[in-house]
């Protein structure tokens, strides 16, 4: 584990140092990647560690984003208040949805989370008086943190880097803690965990809520980054992209999904310059990953075959 922490520290330091030297456009893309890395990692806690595949993760991203959008534009509330409110409401949404979804397993869970994600999308789309519908909420100002203006690309980049690092540390501690081990056990064998004495429903529920919490956190940052929040931000494709980031990077590794987020964000922005066929490419990448690299990038790199212990006296 120490190796992983060291690697990530090196990566964060490298990002911190090289950031200011990048031209403005790549820097903003990198900032976007950091925000999505938080979302991907939050989904990994649910999918890679607990073994629950959700197709509605964009809901918490969206709730966090919309809360910031409304509070920042209509009520001129400050950064910390907006972040807190966004995260709180996203967490509350996950708490309610979890009560419904966690009872289900496997396929039902996938469908229920998809449907719940669409419910939030539907609200964003139709509750025009609150969310301004299809047009979305624009004009979200870059915040100030403790008197420091985060308007320019570089300070905002450092702010997002710090948030991503914080999220990574907290989620990293979570997955190596006894609770995290419990989640991995649930992914391995729910029946065994029940037999050992774990209240599996409760552990899954807590994981679901925590996952929604960090998803919401990512959404709050997105609102400030983009300046505009619209129903497109929490449509089904967004949940699908998040799932692909986890699959591409390697589920159950935390750092893998962060990497996956980076790749997808860069790919998306790069591809959109040359063609409008992003969804086609995304779909193709998806199928390719499932067929040829199901363990993702980090997962495949990690796989070190151990010789079977058959020679040992059994």
């Amino acid at each position, binding site marked *: 584990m120490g190796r992983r922490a060291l690697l990530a520290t090196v990566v964060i330091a490298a990002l911190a140092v090289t950031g200011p030297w990048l031209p403005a456009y790549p820097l903003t893309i990198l900032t976007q990647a950091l925000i999505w890395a938080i979302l991907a990692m939050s989904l990994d806690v649910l999918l890679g560690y607990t073994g629950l595949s959700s197709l509605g993760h964009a809901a918490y991203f969206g709730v966090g984003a919309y809360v910031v959008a409304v509070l920042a534009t209509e009520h001129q509330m400050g950064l910390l208040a907006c972040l807190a409110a966004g995260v709180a409401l996203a967490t509350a949404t996950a708490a309610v949805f979890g009560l419904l979804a966690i009872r289900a397993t496997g396929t039902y869970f996938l469908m229920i989370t998809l449907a719940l994600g669409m419910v939030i999308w539907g609200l964003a789309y139709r509750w025009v008086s609150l969310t301004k519908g299809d047009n979305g909420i624009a004009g979200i100002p870059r915040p100030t943190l403790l008197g420091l203006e985060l308007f320019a690309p570089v300070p905002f980049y450092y702010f997002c880097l710090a948030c991503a690092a914080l999220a990574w540390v907290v989620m990293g501690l979570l997955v190596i803690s006894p609770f*995290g081990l419990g989640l991995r056990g649930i992914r*391995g064998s729910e029946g065994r965990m029940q*037999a050992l004495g774990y209240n599996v429903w409760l552990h899954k529920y807590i994981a679901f809520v925590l996952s929604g919490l960090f998803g919401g956190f990512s959404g709050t940052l997105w609102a400030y980054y983009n300046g505009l929040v619209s129903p497109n931000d929490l449509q089904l494709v967004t949940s699908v992209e998040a799932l692909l980031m986890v699959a591409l990077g390697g589920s159950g590794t935390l750092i893998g999904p962060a990497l996956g987020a980076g790749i997808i964000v860069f790919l998306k922005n790069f591809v959109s310059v040359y063609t409008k066929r992003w969804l086609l490419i995304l779909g193709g990448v998806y199928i390719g990953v499932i067929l040829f690299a199901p363990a993702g990038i980090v997962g495949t790199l990690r796989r070190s075959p151990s010789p079977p212990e058959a020679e040992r006296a059994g």
Partner: protein
Amino acid sequence: MRGSRVRGRLTDLALHLDGVSRAFGGLQAVDGVALAVHPGERRALIGPNGAGKTTLFNLISGALPPSSGRIVLFGRDVTSAPAHQRAALGLARTFQITNLFPDLTVLENCLLAVQAHSPVRFSMFRPVGGYPALLERARTALGRLELGSLGDAVVRNLSHGEQRQLEIALALAGRPRVLLLDEPTAGLSPAESRLMAGLLRRLDPAITVLMIEHDMDIALELSDMVTVLHYGRVIADGPREQVKADPQVREIYLGA
């Protein structure tokens, strides 16, 4: 026939089953089973394939709800209690088809068993390694089953025999009061079975053990009391020698 009649008060029993039945559609898998198991008892549950033994274990452990009847664990009615609550009361089980955590290491498997009854299992901000007492307990549990040197091995790379040993280590790591062993020697070679029997003989005598076992020699060797199941019904129940001599049992099972 002695044995099925309860000796002493009901609350003295480690495990008490009263008219427990379970049907699957039209099939009566378990039919009106009564069982009275005393603390510290070693009881073998035998019967032909399909007699309902594993189903009975699933009913006792809470993996399956009964269609009717009562299940009482140390005087507590657990008939409608979920599996994890029964485990918290001191019930542990192994599985006939190995049910471990294949992608985790042997030590991690054991840690899960050890932390299951501790509030530590909800701790989120300290690494597992920061709980030396837990690690110690896990290592000790592994050592008792002679798996101490395999702590860092990933379970899916273990041999079948080692996995069967780990099955038992997990059940014991939680310091159970009642242990349900479902065919502990399933799939083991004769030599491995002998080793397993040796390990089982050294189990803490305070633990109540209920064991399903196909190897008749081992089953009878390790138990004082025997219950024979046939088509979901108890057809014989009592001390080992008495059941061995029962003509009905001989005809159906031992003699066949």
